[in-house]
């Protein structure tokens, strides 16, 4: 009687075989590599900073900075002086472009090939204030004047209201009167990391989404690997050896988790995002990979062929993707997305990578994610075991 082979040796052999198969499946190798390359390239192509300033075009004032400078700065506006109200209107209407050069603001018709002076920078003016001739003198004399405010259709209503306030404030200042009310004192309490002046860039916001895309790709690849093993009944050949159903399932889980984790780490390293808490990020990613491996078992067990595996993979993937997409558009998602298994993963990644959260802050998310991992992996295990035993 030969010596019984250890479970570890059996699982190791199946893991090795799965990795060889995975590496030789040209379709999945191509798709996986493509996703990795695209994700990394997209990250670096996305803007790394955000220009939050709004450019306010002004005409009719000899010294707009002197007249409006302080008030405009309080509203977060950058002043761009125009020679005429007509130029200003055409620029805000999108018929012409404004360029800031040493000699002042130049206005060129859109599409014009007229050369620009060296160092000219385009000024994206979406709001304009056309002051009438002699505005300051007339206002100081208490005469009625009319200021025309041009706004682009995309400017929010609150900014338009702010413009009205700006004009009123300017009128009081020019007339030498104080404001009719005393502004109340304001105390700002910043909760979490103060990102004033350093807003979250698209690049930062997309980081969890990119990691998630890689894990989703892994879901498909694993599901396809499992489905092929079932459809071609190679698993039956394995199960008439000393290998058990548990060995097969354990190896699939290990391959799925290792592969997902490996790819996610490659992406994070390539986008320079393994900081500030590498161990915490790796823990989050490991749990995410296990969750994905469990989901892949469900999808792989459900499919009868390539197309149906793809269909089931999509069916499982879409709900998992929702929290990642919602993270891109804060405030757009409903509360129910909190119950989705991927929610704690996305939130954890966002908190750690964007807001600098540590272990203590992330612990609740880790706990929920762990519970989901156990639930999904167990469900995948049970469904796959039943499928294998029914072959």
């Amino acid at each position, binding site marked *: *009687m*030969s*010596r*019984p*082979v*250890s479970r570890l*040796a*059996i699982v190791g*052999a*199946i893991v*090795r*075989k799965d990795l*060889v*198969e995975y590496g*030789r*499946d040209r379709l999945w190798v191509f798709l996986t590599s493509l996703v990795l390359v695209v994700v990394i390239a997209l990250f670096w192509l996305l803007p790394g900073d955000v220009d939050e300033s709004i450019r306010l075009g002004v005409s009719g004032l000899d010294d707009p900075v002197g007249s409006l400078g302080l008030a405009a700065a309080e509203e977060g506006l950058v002043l761009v002086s125009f020679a005429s109200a007509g130029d200003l209107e055409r620029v805000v209407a999108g018929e012409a472009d404004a360029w800031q050069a040493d000699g002042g603001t130049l206005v060129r018709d859109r599409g014009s090939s007229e050369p620009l002076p060296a160092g000219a920078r385009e000024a994206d003016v979406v709001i304009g204030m056309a002051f009438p001739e002699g505005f300051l003198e007339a206002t100081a004399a208490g005469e009625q004047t009319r200021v025309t405010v041009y706004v682009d259709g995309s400017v929010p209503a609150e900014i338009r209201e702010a413009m009205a306030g700006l004009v009123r404030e300017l009128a009081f200042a020019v007339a030498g009167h104080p404001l009719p009310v005393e502004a109340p004192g304001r105390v700002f309490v910043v909760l979490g990391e103060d990102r004033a002046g350093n807003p979250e860039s698209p690049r930062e916001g997309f980081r969890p989404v990119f990691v998630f895309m890689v894990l989703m790709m892994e879901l498909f690849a694993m599901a396809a690997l499992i489905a092929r093993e079932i459809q*071609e*009944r*190679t698993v*039956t*050949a*394995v*199960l*008439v*050896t*000393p*290998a*058990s*159903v548990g060995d097969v399932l354990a190896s699939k889980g290990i391959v799925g988790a290792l592969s997902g984790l490996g790819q996610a780490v490659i992406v994070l390293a390539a986008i320079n995002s393994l900081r500030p808490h590498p161990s915490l990020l790796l823990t989050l990613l490991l749990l995410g990979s296990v969750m994905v491996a469990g989901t892949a078992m469900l999808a792989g067990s459900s499919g009868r062929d390539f197309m149906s595996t793809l269909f089931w993979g999509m069916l499982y993937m879409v709900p998992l993707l929702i929290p990642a997409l919602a993270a891109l558009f804060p405030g757009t998602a409903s509360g129910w997305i909190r119950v989705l298994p991927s929610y704690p993963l996305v939130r954890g990644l966002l908190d750690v990578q964007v807001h600098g959260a540590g272990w203590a802050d992330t612990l609740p998310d880790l706990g929920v994610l762990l519970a989901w991992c156990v639930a999904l992996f167990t469900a995948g295990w049970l469904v796959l075991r039943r499928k294998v*035993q029914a*072959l």
Partner: protein
Amino acid sequence: MTETAIRVEDVRFSYGNLEVLHGISFEVAPGEILGFLGPNGAGKSTTIKILTGQLPLKTGRAQVLGMEVTADDPVVQAQIGVCFEEKNLYELMSGRENLRFFARLFGIKDLDADGLLRKVGLADRARDPVGKYSKGMRQRLMMARALVNKPRVLFLDEPTDGLDPVSSRAIRTLIKQEADRGAAVLLTTHDMFEADELSDRVAFINEGRIHAIDTPENLKLKHGRRAVKVRVREADGVSEQSVSLDAADAGERLGAAVRAPGLMTIHTEEATLESIFVEMTGRGLEG
């Protein structure tokens, strides 16, 4: 050393409400080839699945090498080799890699994969991915895979089904070699010639019941008809007559036939396994 490699006693099995095995019993000794002969759906593959732990045994008793058969029993499974009807090989891996992978599942690290591949005529394709193998090559690799652990019991489910004569012959030779080595072989087939050529004993199975189990010779003697067919060319064509060897005047009639001018051919009319199967079960082996 146990005297019986496979022992099956009154095994019944149902898929849902459909009973497919109605209490079958048989034994296979070490070094013996038992041909399980029957049409598709007779219960041959179900029997193999139960004996290899792929299906749970619910009623009856099944032993392999004196051990009760249960699913996921690594001790039993370490001693058996299985050649499946479907070609369930890892197509992205080479023939050599397939064999080495399965050997590792048995704890064998130093498998002579190339030697095994040479045995089945695949040495020159050892490095090619199985996806590029022909049907016959895959079947030969399946056979080689069943042998990686030098099994004491071999379960072969239609091992030559749909193969060309050369591949079939290679596999038959291998089966005989394994039996000569001492392995008990349970061979399911619906090919009567294969069963006749290879089997020490043959079991006729139909609709989940074993109708007869004996050596091919005994089955033919018990159930067949001893006769000789003589064909003679005559002026107006060819005449044919059948001479029963059990008849009282068999010698005289046969002598007369042989001496007849225009003698063309003499054939024995020994019964085939298929004709006996049809006689016993009322249906053919195909389909």
